[in-house]
């Protein structure tokens, strides 16, 4: 998580003082590409204790022939954003319409779907939390069934890929392992939060000192810690955060730390081998100047230890400077190779 803090500060995009969330200007939309901004109802999010929107903003990018060829169905890539950014700004930053156009020109047409899971704490962590909302199920169930019933998708596992960056890379791993039968290929870019998160009495005390109304101003790292807490150790009976802090009677609470570990992809691999083995393909990459390279190398080594086939690439880059280019030139071509085209 320290690495996440350090690398996030390298983001090349503007960070407005008030909202603390990352923004990017709208991207070019090449001729032939259709972009739809829709709201998808999230049955899985009903009753969440943070008051997060149940209806989520979703960007849908349709390939050139979608309009001209009304009988054709398309593979769908679900693309998950990182912490402290919403889906639309991530779509902006990643220049998704251009990536879809370039891949279409190479003969690979996709629908790319970018949901927004920005929450009160700055990010859903794509986890199943009574407090934050069950965003895992929102992605794998609510969003997928919405897309399959409203667009001409290839509505089966072989036609669905899941990818994401940073917190979205984390979500790719966890949603992939838990809802393995929904997606057939995964690619995690610069995934965060791979190793179990630990705390000291000092760091846990600092977390517990943040007022609920002061989360937005508490800084990226603290906010990410609090978001992880509400996602991974929810407690409906402990307002206002409705979560268990990692501190109890002056010591670090081992049950809370264990609950967090249970959400760490590195700890999950050993108990999700059949799921991981069932994918058509798995890929992961990270920049050599990204602080997350250590963690991302660890999950690569863990997959190797258990004989899970996967593609692993490192490249000259930071947490953010090459990710849009790689989505276009590496991630979408990877899905083209492994997903069904009809």
């Amino acid at each position, binding site marked *: 998580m320290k690495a996440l803090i350090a690398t996030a500060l390298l983001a090349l995009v503007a960070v407005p003082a008030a909202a603390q969330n990352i923004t990017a200007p709208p991207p070019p939309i090449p001729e032939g590409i259709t972009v739809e901004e829709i709201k998808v109802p999230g049955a899985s999010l009903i009753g969440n204790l943070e008051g997060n929107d149940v209806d989520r903003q979703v960007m849908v990018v349709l390939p050139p022939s979608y309009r001209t060829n009304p009988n054709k169905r398309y593979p769908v890539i679900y693309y998950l954003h990182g912490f402290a950014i919403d889906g639309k700004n991530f779509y902006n930053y990643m220049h998704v319409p251009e990536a879809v156009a370039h891949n279409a020109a190479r003969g690979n047409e996709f629908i790319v779907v970018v949901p927004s899971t920005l929450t009160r704490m700055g990010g859903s962590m794509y986890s199943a*939390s009574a407090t934050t909302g069950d965003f895992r199920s929102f992605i794998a169930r609510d969003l997928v069934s919405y897309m399959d019933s409203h667009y001409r998708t290839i509505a089966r596992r072989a036609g669905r890929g899941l990818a994401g960056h940073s917190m979205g890379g984390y979500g790719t791993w966890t949603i992939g392992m838990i809802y393995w039968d929904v997606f057939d290929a995964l690619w995690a870019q610069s995934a965060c939060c791979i190793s179990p998160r630990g705390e000291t009495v000092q760091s846990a005390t600092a977390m517990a000192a943040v007022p609920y109304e002061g989360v937005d101003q508490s800084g990226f790292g603290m906010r990410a810690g609090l978001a992880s807490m509400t996602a*991974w150790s929810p407690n*409906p009976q402990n307002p206002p955060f409705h979560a268990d802090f990692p501190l109890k009677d002056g010591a670090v609470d081992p049950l809370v730390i264990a609950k967090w570990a249970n959400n760490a992809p590195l700890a999950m691999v050993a108990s999700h081998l059949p799921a991981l083995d069932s994918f058509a393909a798995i890929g992961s990459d990270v920049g050599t100047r990204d602080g997350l390279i250590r963690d991302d190398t660890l999950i690569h080594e863990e997959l190797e230890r258990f004989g899970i086939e996967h593609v692993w690439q490192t490249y000259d880059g930071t947490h953010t400077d090459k990710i849009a280019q790689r989505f276009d030139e590496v991630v979408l071509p990877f899905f083209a190779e492994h997903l069904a085209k009809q």
Partner: protein
Amino acid sequence: VAYVDEHYRTIADADSRGLSGHSMGGYGTLKIAMKYPGVFSSIYAMAPCCLSPSNFTAEQIEQFKAMTPEQVAAAQGFALVVPATLSAWAPDPKNPPYYVSTGVTDGAVDPLLLARLHANSPLVLLPQYLPEMKALEAIRLEVGDKDFLLRDDTWMHEELERFGVAHEWQVFDGDHGNRVNARIRSDLLPFFGAHLDK
């Protein structure tokens, strides 16, 4: 389940399948119910073990590593807790001869080894599996008042309550084993009689 449905005249539907077990089997009952929703509709956990996160000390790991294969083969009961737990929850295909994680560095157990153990604890898993648990028709959790597992099982009951998972909870006069046989007749089978479709 597939084998039994294929070879016997079962009612091959979740509404007519119950899952139950004692001690380690009670642990399995809770965990399998969480991980395989839609297979069983009612569950009955008798004195489930292993609910809170397991932790081993570096000393325990070192003791296990020092055992010869003959000693492991001859070991019984609780002497096997460390190897059995490691092989179930912290496997390592690249670490012969037992193919389990045994990492100890500078007197400290590898944190990943412990995290792998923790990721198998029902108390830890519960908040992540609320929809699966709430979808069950009925849940029964019970333990004897003289059972060494009373504390852990009470904790599980409290966690189920905290997260609003409806369940029956009973503490009976008994220890870990002396009432199991009787309670299968007096409580377990009637419970499934009441909840499974006939």
